[in-house]
């Protein structure tokens, strides 16, 4: 039997039973569509998260107080491990001498009420230096970001997010106004233009002030962390070593800090989301196997319904393998066409979702399309084998005496 004739015969059967064919196509296409959509969500989430890190730049290091290590065995002093000393502004200042460091931004965070003209709301506070603007790649909508502030100097200035501006100042011009923050006052010098989140805080809701003002406000000398921006990525390993060395020296020989590379964190998230996407694809692939089982069930019924036809084909000279090929071809056409339809629907819905949610980038990975098609085809072939074998092994006499 020629290939074209095989396709024609299989296709004519599928057309003859349109409802059955349609149901099987829907089942397979839903499976493929699920793979495309779920991987698009997974990849979109990965892109979003890593994008957030990339926006900050990959040449960042974070110095965090405390260090995880095994304790004990060295005597009573070490029983509790290394008790971390506070990370202070002076520590941040000491890092300025490291070669290859572009910016240093100490960070203090807290929350306190902010008041203006009788209006009050609780706001998250970030205490830092002007370097923070460069470190975070922020843009100002209006005004300046902490003018005159250095690691050593803390004039009473602050910048605010858009929501803080609209809620507390309304239609008044916030620039130049005195804002009461906790028991302190600071003059508003600018409005943050960037939207999004920083250290888990909505930038539209925050007040940013000099680091020393924040430590005084919260009556807490310790920093939340220090952000160190390297001039070049390749210098980061050396800078990391230098940071540990300097801080260790300042903390009486105790290595009580952890230095985290931004690119390493980003890589970790990247890996996590890759695994997540793969897991989503695997879960969705189950539906493809379900579709395969459905194809098998329906084709087993079809073998029974088409006994007479199978008997006839055998009577006029069809070999067992030709009968088998015929049923296998039907299964492959069903799963293949279903997979292609699933791809078209999946990618179309992805595009619609992109339009509906422009901030979230739905990115169906290329491998998902290939894998879903292959899984659908393999599923069709594997689950088509049993009905095909059953059809080919039918006794022609019994088959001919079957339904007519």
């Amino acid at each position: 039997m020629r290939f074209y004739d095989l396709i024609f015969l299989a296709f004519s059967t599928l057309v003859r039973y349109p409802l059955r064919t349609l149901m099987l196509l829907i089942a397979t296409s839903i499976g493929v569509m699920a793979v495309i959509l779920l991987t698009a969500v997974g990849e979109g989430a990965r892109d979003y998260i890593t994008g957030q890190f990339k926006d900050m730049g990959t040449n960042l290091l974070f110095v965090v107080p405390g260090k995880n290590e095994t304790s004990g065995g060295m005597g009573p002093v070490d029983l509790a491990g290394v008790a971390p000393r506070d990370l202070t502004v002076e520590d941040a200042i000491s890092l300025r001498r490291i070669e290859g460091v572009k910016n240093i931004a100490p960070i203090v965070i807290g929350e306190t009420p902010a008041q203006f003209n009788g209006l009050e709301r609780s706001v998250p506070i970030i205490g830092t230096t002007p370097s923070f603007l460069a470190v975070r790649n922020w843009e100002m909508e209006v005004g300046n970001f902490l003018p005159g502030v250095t690691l050593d100097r803390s004039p009473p200035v602050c910048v605010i997010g858009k929501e803080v501006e609209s809620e507390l100042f309304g239609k008044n011009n916030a620039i130049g106004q005195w804002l009461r923050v906790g028991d302190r006052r600071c003059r508003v010098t600018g409005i943050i233009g960037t939207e999004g989140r920083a250290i888990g805080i909505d930038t539209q809701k925050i007040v940013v002030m000099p680091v020393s003002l924040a430590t005084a406000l919260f009556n807490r000398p310790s920093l939340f962390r220090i952000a160190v921006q390297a001039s070049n990525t390749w210098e980061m390993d050396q800078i990391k070593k230098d940071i540990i060395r300097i801080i260790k020296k300042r903390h009486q020989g105790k290595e009580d800090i952890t230095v985290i590379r931004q690119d390493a964190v980003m890589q970790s998230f990247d890996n996590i989301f890759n695994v997540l996407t793969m897991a989503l694809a695997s879960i969705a692939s189950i539906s493809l196997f379900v579709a395969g089982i459905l194809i098998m069930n329906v084709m087993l019924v079809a073998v029974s319904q088409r006994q007479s036809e199978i008997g006839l084909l055998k009577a006029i000279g069809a070999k067992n393998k030709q009968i088998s090929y015929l049923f296998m071809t039907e299964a492959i056409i069903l799963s293949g066409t279903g997979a292609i339809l699933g791809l078209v629907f999946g990618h179309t819905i992805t595009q619609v979702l992109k339009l509906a949610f422009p901030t979230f980038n739905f990115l169906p990975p290329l491998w998902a399309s290939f894998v879903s098609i292959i899984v659908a085809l393999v599923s069709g072939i594997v689950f088509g084998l049993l009905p095909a074998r059953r059809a080919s092994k039918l006794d022609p006499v019994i088959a001919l005496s079957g339904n007519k």
Partner: protein
Amino acid sequence: MIQLENLCRHFEVGNQIVRALDEVTLEINKKEYLSIMGVSGSGKSTLLNILGLLDTPTSGDYVLSGINTSKMNDDEMAHIRSTKIGFIFQSFHLIPRLTAAENVEIPMVLSGLNSKERKERADNALARVSLTDRADHRPEQLSGGQRQRVAIARSIVMEPDVLLADEPTGNLDSASSKEIIKLIEELNKGGLTLMLVTHDVEMGSRSDRLIELLDGKIINDKKN
């Protein structure tokens, strides 16, 4: 052309053995027109199935055109069915989704003939059964007699040596039956060996030779 030697076909039904054919010995000559008659369960269809290589005997030999078919595997038997044997069934067995011409082409499709040759042969076969104008009709658009003529065209399109007809007029009215009988008799006159299973005494009497079966044995073998 056909020799059956002590042919038996037994079926196990529960604990019992049913002897559908019992020690049948028969010789059929080329171009012979043979009718097989008998009551229901006498073994007519079993004999026809074995002659058509759709079934295999429990014991005994079946030699077709000098080839002993007893040791053939499924594929070899399929090849013989495809090239040497044509079938006509009581219920036509046309594939409903295909046109008359496509139904006639099916044996050639299975044999791997190219579409041009298939079309030529199918047109000729349909012309021989006077159905050229119905080539593009599906079975549901044809009368019973026309469907059987399509089945006849399909059975002869591979130019077989033997034509096996299992009650070919069983589902037809008398006018159509006469047409069909006339047609297959013409094919026999054209050189085909014809074996016809029938309940119809009148039809049986038209053949060159009539054998009668009872309980799997030939009880009568006479020339008309």
